[in-house]
């Protein structure tokens, strides 16, 4: 606990101590003076009394010789008055007063008081308190006259009281007291002068001791009146220097920290992956640009303080592993739909516990969010492709196997049948080979190595060939095929096989996805410098959502009517590539349940 102190307290305290002890010493001195005075006065009085006693004894003897007892009486009265005695008397050998300064007591028995006694030869002294409570000294001595003892002389002196002594010494007191008081005052002044800087220092030190942030207490120099003050001033200077260094250091490290922080923010904001930090309560304390974009916000600041669970609509996603408190200390990874809906895109969300420097859990988490929609679609398409490819490979293979085995049992078949079977096997093998070609083309296309073998081609023959190839398929579903070709068609340098495959693919699709009894239009026009080929059907159409993706490799519509059909998902992708390599383009217009129109334009130059 700290007392409230001011810089005045120390001098007050020191002066108070100084004065108390100084005054006590002064009083002690005065008391000593009084005592010494009393003792001196007492012994001087005693010496005087003894001298008086001797003189009185001699004078009495002389008076007695000349004047007899009356002379003795008057001499005693004279002495008592002269020497300011309490009384004096002469007692005879029988113990009665022969004479007394108080004449009434002549003839009375002499007193024999008891008390402190002292003897000097025949003289003695006894100190006692008389009937008036006065301290009385009674001196006695024998009085001789002409060789015989006349009696005993008694002389009573009242001792001066303390008051008397004080009164006597009072005249010395001013000299004894004023001098020391003056000196003490000078001392106080000197003390104050010495103590003042120390008081300043003490005041500052006690503020320092009381402060919760000692480095914020300002220390100031004091007037340099002595070595302590000078030392203090030097200390203050050194501290100020140290503090300013510390402040500089702090500002420097703050600046550096800010720099590091900005750098970390820059790095995080440059990542394509969404990153967020959440605190112990699950509130976002940092979010980068990518995360804001993934969550449909312009500004990452809009995410601060919100919960990731809420932002990711996790509660609407069925089982929510992020809500499990046991999972808080380990990494959790989950794939979930954007805004809770898989159709809107797929996000891969990973949450890792944030580790503090010591490896302890800091209670917060770091989240990373990535849009894996494309990846998922690719995966889906790959699976679809594997399924389709399996089917596409197994179907001709099944025919080949069945026919080949039947051929081996030749007893079942006549020669015509056998020939037909061989043709079937051949056709199926061709179909297999074509599918494998498609696969190879796709893989060449992947590496950009699909090459054209252009040759001068008679377009009319080319279109006839195409139409002949698709007619049986149309006929099977009773689809009417309207072909509109211009009367005169130019010759073009094309990769005939690839263009035929492309147009067969488009017409084949039209047949596949048009219900029985539908219509398919095949229209060729020559417009300016381009050859325009249109394939239009009254089929199931393509939804607006899927339309942009139909040229993607392995893409197959999710429409169950498409799923029921076999297909590799490669045809349109290849068609587009072939047209592109010819310098043309392929467009598509479609309306669900109404039909689809593909337009291929090829340059004629």
């Amino acid at each position, binding site marked *: 606990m700290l007392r409230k102190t001011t810089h005045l307290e120390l001098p007050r305290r020191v002066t108070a101590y100084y004065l108390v002890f100084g005054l006590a010493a002064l009083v002690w001195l005065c008391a000593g003076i009084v005592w010494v005075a009393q003792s001196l006065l007492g012994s001087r009085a005693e010496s005087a009394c003894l001298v008086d006693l001797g003189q009185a004894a001699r004078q009495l003897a002389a008076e007695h010789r000349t004047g007899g007892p009356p002379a003795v009486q008057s001499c005693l009265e004279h002495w008592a008055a002269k020497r300011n005695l309490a009384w004096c008397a002469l007692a005879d050998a029988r113990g009665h007063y022969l004479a007394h300064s108080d004449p009434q007591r002549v003839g009375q028995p002499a007193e024999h008081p008891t008390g402190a006694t002292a003897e000097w030869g025949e003289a003695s002294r006894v100190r006692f308190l008389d009937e008036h409570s006065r301290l009385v000294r009674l001196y006695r001595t024998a009085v001789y006259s002409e060789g015989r003892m006349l009696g005993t002389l008694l002389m009573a002196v009242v001792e001066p009281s303390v008051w008397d002594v004080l009164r006597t010494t009072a005249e010395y007191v001013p000299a004894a007291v004023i001098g020391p008081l003056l000196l003490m005052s000078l001392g106080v002044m000197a003390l104050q002068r010495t103590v003042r800087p120390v008081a300043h220092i003490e005041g500052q030190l006690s503020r320092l001791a009381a402060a919760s942030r000692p480095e914020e207490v300002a220390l100031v120099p004091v007037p340099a009146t002595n070595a302590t003050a000078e030392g203090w001033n030097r200390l203050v200077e050194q501290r100020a220097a140290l503090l300013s260094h510390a402040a500089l250091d702090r500002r420097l490290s703050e600046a550096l920290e800010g720099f590091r922080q900005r750098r970390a923010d820059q790095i995080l904001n440059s990542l394509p992956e969404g990153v967020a930090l959440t605190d112990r309560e699950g509130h976002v304390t940092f979010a980068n640009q990518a995360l804001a974009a993934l969550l449909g916000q312009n500004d990452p600041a809009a995410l601060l303080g919100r919960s990731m669970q809420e932002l990711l609509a996790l509660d609407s996603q069925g089982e929510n592993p992020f809500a499990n408190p046991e999972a808080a200390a380990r990494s959790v990874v989950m794939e979930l739909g954007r805004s809770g809906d898989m159709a809107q895109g797929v996000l891969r969300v990973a949450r890792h516990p944030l580790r503090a420097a010591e490896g302890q859990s800091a209670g917060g988490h770091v989240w990373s969010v990535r849009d894996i929609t494309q990846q998922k679609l690719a995966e889906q398409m790959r699976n679809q492709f594997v399924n389709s490819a399996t089917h596409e490979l197994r179907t001709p*293979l099944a*025919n*080949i*196997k*069945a026919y080949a*085995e*039947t051929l081996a049992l030749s007893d079942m078949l006549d020669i015509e049948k056998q020939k037909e079977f061989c043709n079937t096997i051949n056709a*199926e093998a061709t179909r297999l080979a074509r599918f494998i070609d498609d696969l190879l083309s796709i893989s060449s296309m992947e590496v950009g190595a699909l090459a054209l073998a252009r040759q001068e081609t008679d377009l009319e023959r080319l279109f006839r060939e195409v139409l002949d190839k698709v007619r049986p398929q149309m006929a099977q579903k009773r689809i009417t095929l309207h072909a509109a070709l211009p009367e005169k068609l130019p010759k073009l340098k094309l990769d005939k096989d690839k263009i035929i495959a492309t147009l067969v693919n488009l017409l084949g699709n039209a047949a596949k996805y048009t219900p029985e009894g539908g219509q398919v239009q095949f229209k060729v026009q020559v417009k300016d410098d381009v050859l325009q080929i249109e394939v239009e059907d009254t089929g199931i159409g393509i939804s607006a959502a899927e339309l942009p993706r139909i040229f993607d490799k392995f893409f197959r519509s999710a429409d169950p009517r498409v799923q*029921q059909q076999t297909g590799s998902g490669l045809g349109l992708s290849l068609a587009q590539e072939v047209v592109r390599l010819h310098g043309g383009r392929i467009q598509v217009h479609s309306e669900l349940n109404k039909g689809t129109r593909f337009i291929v334009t090829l340059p004629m130059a």
Partner: protein
Amino acid sequence: MAKRILVAEDNPALAAVVRLHLEHAGFEVTLARDGREAWNCLQRQDFDLLVTDQQMPGLSGSELLRRMRQTQRLAGLPVLMLTAKGLEFEREQVRTAFGVLDVLPKPFSPRQLVDQVESCLAPGVPSG
């Protein structure tokens, strides 16, 4: 009396050869080009066995079976399914999911098909 078998297969070449073998083995065979046609045949006529492809345009083999299982008269008809699904576990899935008697993966030997048809129709084999 010859047992009647309905063969639903969208691949006409394969259907033809299957028919050839089954007729040779003494069965009466009706062909259907897809699930819908097979369904119509099943409505009109009684059969002893259905051999169906799993994947067909229009009404698939799986869908055909689902419909049959909901129809009392057809629920007990033994079914042999042809599938282009590659893996054994997928075939097992088909077997358990549709309660078919047997699953024959493509490509198959026609001889094997005849053997399996005969074993499906042999007395003592629980139908359905």
